[in-house]
């Protein structure tokens, strides 16, 4: 007897992986962008299944809301939308490389016995459940205590990216 969460998990994984496959197989680049948004939505569902509600909200706002829209804008600013997604000369090499890596990763994942490191005793279980119930509080706390240096560094990276993007696309006036 399968549990309902397992059915939702398999369904979500199937939708995510098939729309990710359509991103690289479809000819029309606009449809590829829409399938990319579907993949991001599948990842949101996987995050919710993992009890990471904050990340699901962030993923929904940033990836589905912002990055997909920016990619679609870039597609509409350029020509050749209908034939815009052809294969390169490395098609055979690429598929073989992907299949090889996929087989290697799946073999090495299934070869390891994950139960040896994922079994939690009651004390650990209590702490994990407590941390996930107050996840927003602890994420905010980590961000300004333990990880304050990466936080400031990533804000500088965002600032540099914004300035770089503006200076790359602005009209050159002599």
């Amino acid at each position, binding site marked *: 007897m399968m549990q309902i969460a397992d059915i939702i998990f398999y369904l979500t994984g199937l939708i995510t992986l098939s729309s990710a496959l359509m991103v690289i197989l479809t000819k029309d680049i606009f449809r590829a962008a829409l399938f990319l948004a579907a*993949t991001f939505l599948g990842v949101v569902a996987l995050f919710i299944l*993992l009890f990471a509600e904050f990340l699901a909200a962030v993923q929904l706002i940033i990836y589905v809301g912002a990055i997909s829209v920016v990619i679609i804008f870039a597609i509409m600013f350029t020509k050749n939308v209908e034939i815009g997604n052809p*294969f390169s000369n490395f098609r055979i090499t690429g598929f073989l490389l*992907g299949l090889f890596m996929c087989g290697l990763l799946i073999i090495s994942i299934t070869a390891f016995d994950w139960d040896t490191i994922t079994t*939690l005793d009651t*004390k650990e279980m209590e702490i994990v459940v407590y941390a996930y119930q107050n996840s927003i509080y602890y994420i905010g706390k980590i961000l300004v205590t333990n990880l304050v240096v990466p936080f400031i560094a990533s804000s500088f990276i*965002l600032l540099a990216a914004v300035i770089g993007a503006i200076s*790359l696309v602005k009209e050159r006036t002599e």
Partner: protein
Amino acid sequence: MTLEGFLIISAILFCIGLTGVVIKSNIIAILMSVELMLNSVNIAAVAASRYVPPITLDPSQVLMGNMFAVFVITIAAAEVALGLAIVMSVYKDKQSIFIKDASHLKG
């Protein structure tokens, strides 16, 4: 719904992105494949933080995998903004978004 299942989904998604980076000739499609790879890494990090118990009994150590994903999302946003700005710049120069035309640096 085990750690193994999430890791296998993440591995397949990563390989789809890797294949897309190699076989595509459109710069925007290559950027979309890079986004797929970053997303698969996020799934793996969050799944590990959910299933593997913390070393110290501190609640803030439990959520370190989630913090990884937060920083990866930040860098992905910066990366896609810069990448698409470069695509627009190349398009203004060459009227094309295919990698065979973007050979300015070849000399």
